[in-house]
């Protein structure tokens, strides 16, 4: 366990959340808009080839925030296209994030069935 790596993770991950908080404070954006903004920035940064440097530096600090999810989508789309042409262009992105999306849906469904809302 390398302390320096964890410091970098903390700094990069924290910085993304800080940007998100500034957006909330100054523009009153709802969380759905914030998530979409970060996601699209991730797609853009990965496509122009910048995000891999952020990922190499920030490790989980760059992959845990939703911007890393967007970068992952773009990465999958690029790799899919280079391997399988048009079919890869269509399916590459969702293939890359399929484990995450499937897990979110399944886990939310199960927890939703089990949990009861206490407030309201």
């Amino acid at each position, binding site marked *: 366990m390398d302390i320096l790596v964890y410091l970098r993770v903390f700094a990069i991950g924290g910085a*993304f959340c800080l940007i998100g908080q500034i957006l909330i404070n100054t523009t009153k954006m709802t969380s759905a808009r*914030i*998530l979409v903004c970060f996601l699209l920035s991730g797609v853009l940064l990965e496509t122009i080839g910048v995000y891999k440097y952020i990922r190499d530096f920030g490790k989980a600090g760059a992959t845990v925030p939703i911007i890393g999810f967007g970068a992952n989508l773009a990465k999958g789309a690029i790799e899919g296209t280079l391997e399988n042409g048009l079919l890869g262009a269509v399916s590459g992105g969702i293939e890359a994030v399929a484990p995450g999306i499937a897990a979110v849906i399944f886990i939310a469904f199960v927890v939703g069935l089990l949990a009861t809302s206490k407030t309201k």
Partner: protein
Amino acid sequence: MSEPNKRYLELVSKKMPKSRHLTTMFRAFWTGGTICMIGQAFTDLYSSLPAALPEEDVSALTTITLILITAVLTGIGVYDKIGAYAGAGSIVPITGFANSVVSPAIEHKREGVVLGLCSNMFSVAGPVIVFGISSSVVVGIIVLIFKGAFV
């Protein structure tokens, strides 16, 4: 906007303490950073497994673990408390995405499983998935056209 309304808003923005911005920003920074460090801890744990998983599997497992933890914390009502303190620190990480799916699922359950739980699950995550998948297809087509630049 009417004149008294405008003056009222000016007064509000003048009276509102400036330090609130700094406080919320500080909270978002350290909670968000900490969630990412927890993610890094799981990444290190899964990479050190004897099975020697490839990097993509490790990252997918980390994501699933964080989603699972968030879902449980949301289910027992803890994540909302973290969110009230952390602001964007609890929204921007993937845990915020998971929370945005689980939270309406629980809230709307009493309207029925199909029309309540399942259809409201995507009130926040829906736009994210629509934009995400659409933009990835656009990226794919761009790569298809300008293949030379991406090899």
